[in-house]
């Protein structure tokens, strides 16, 4: 257990959030229906992960190209590729 940080417990005493363990924060949720960029504070978030959720894409019997992205200087640039997707961006 960290000597400092933030812990939230439920009324029954069980843990809801512990800053010693849960160290990823949500930076943004972006709907990628076209090529687009997303700005974030790179002085706060120096490490990012991006996950994609496909929306209304073809069934498993068809090819599905995932969006691509690159991050530099506080901007994430998304390229759609062919199908709509949500991008969940986490940072720390």
């Amino acid at each position, binding site marked *: 257990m960290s000597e400092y940080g933030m812990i939230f417990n439920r009324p029954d005493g069980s843990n*809801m959030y512990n*800053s010693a363990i849960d*160290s990823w*924060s949500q930076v943004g949720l972006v709907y990628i229906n076209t090529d687009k960029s997303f700005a974030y504070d790179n002085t706060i978030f120096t490490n990012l992960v991006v*996950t*994609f959720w496909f*929306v209304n894409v073809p069934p498993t019997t068809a090819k599905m190209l*995932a969006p691509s992205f690159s991050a530099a200087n506080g901007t994430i640039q998304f390229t759609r590729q062919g199908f709509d997707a949500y991008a*969940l961006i986490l940072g720390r």
Partner: protein
Amino acid sequence: MSSGILIRNAGNSVLVSDAAPVLHFRELLTNASQVYYYDTYGGCRKWAYTFACPEFPVAFFKLSSAPTSILRTLDNGNGTWTIEVIVGGNGAAVPVSVPATPPELLIFTKPASATFGTDGWGMEVFDQSSNIVFSTKGRPLAVFGASSVLPPVPVNASDIYPPPGGPEGSLQSAYCTGDYTHDGSHAATMQATLFNSTGVTVVGSDVFCSATAIHQHERERGYTGETTSGSGCSRSTTYWQSLYWACYRSAVRLSGTQIEVGWALTEYDKFWSSYTNSFNGWSQSSNSTGRGAGGKPPLSNETINYNQSAMLFIDGAKYR
């Protein structure tokens, strides 16, 4: 930031910021309809969860020893969504069977559509538009692990010999009839038995994962040949092709205390075609007859989206 709130932990990680709305827990889904079940090449089940949610839902599935991932999310247009999940198996030395019940699914969404308690105490954070971005009345998404991963390098299927269903030496397209396990090496390499470690340390015994099946992979094995009937000036030759194929998506599983990423079967089938070329020596003529085809053609023999992809891990006990 000139106003609002910014809380960091000892590692300088941002915990709560009014600039970043935190996803909150909405519901636990335990019921799903089975879209299909295959028992070939290790097997797989595809599940569909349909539920109401005013805003985009982010799903986490409960990890098991069977590789699992989220295939896609469908917006049904009436405030309901359908999330499709695939669960695979394999027949390795220590076989992985496909569970008969759907994995539990935890749904998270923006705070405005999350499930909040009625406690009159705790902590709430609002953005400059007075929208809730964090609340201890709800249950904020607490991610203990995130990893950018690649499934194992795809492997090629091995030859089938003798041909499925056909006696040795009499290869015919007609024999491409569905004995997918006829040859041991073929059946083994069409199964997804390889996994890579994600490097994530398991927290608790109730681990949920959010992983979208971005990586797509196909294996196939084709055979061609010809058989001749008749002789001399009156003969015919049949040229044939048989093709077995299977498609896979990346998927995650729990192996002891290790979280691994591999492949899960999603589709498989076979395809055959033939034509017969007849030769008449008296008239010095030939013509092609007897064209035929059957089965289901494959997609293309390739692996796409083979790039690092992020997977998120949470402790499900916080949301029960």
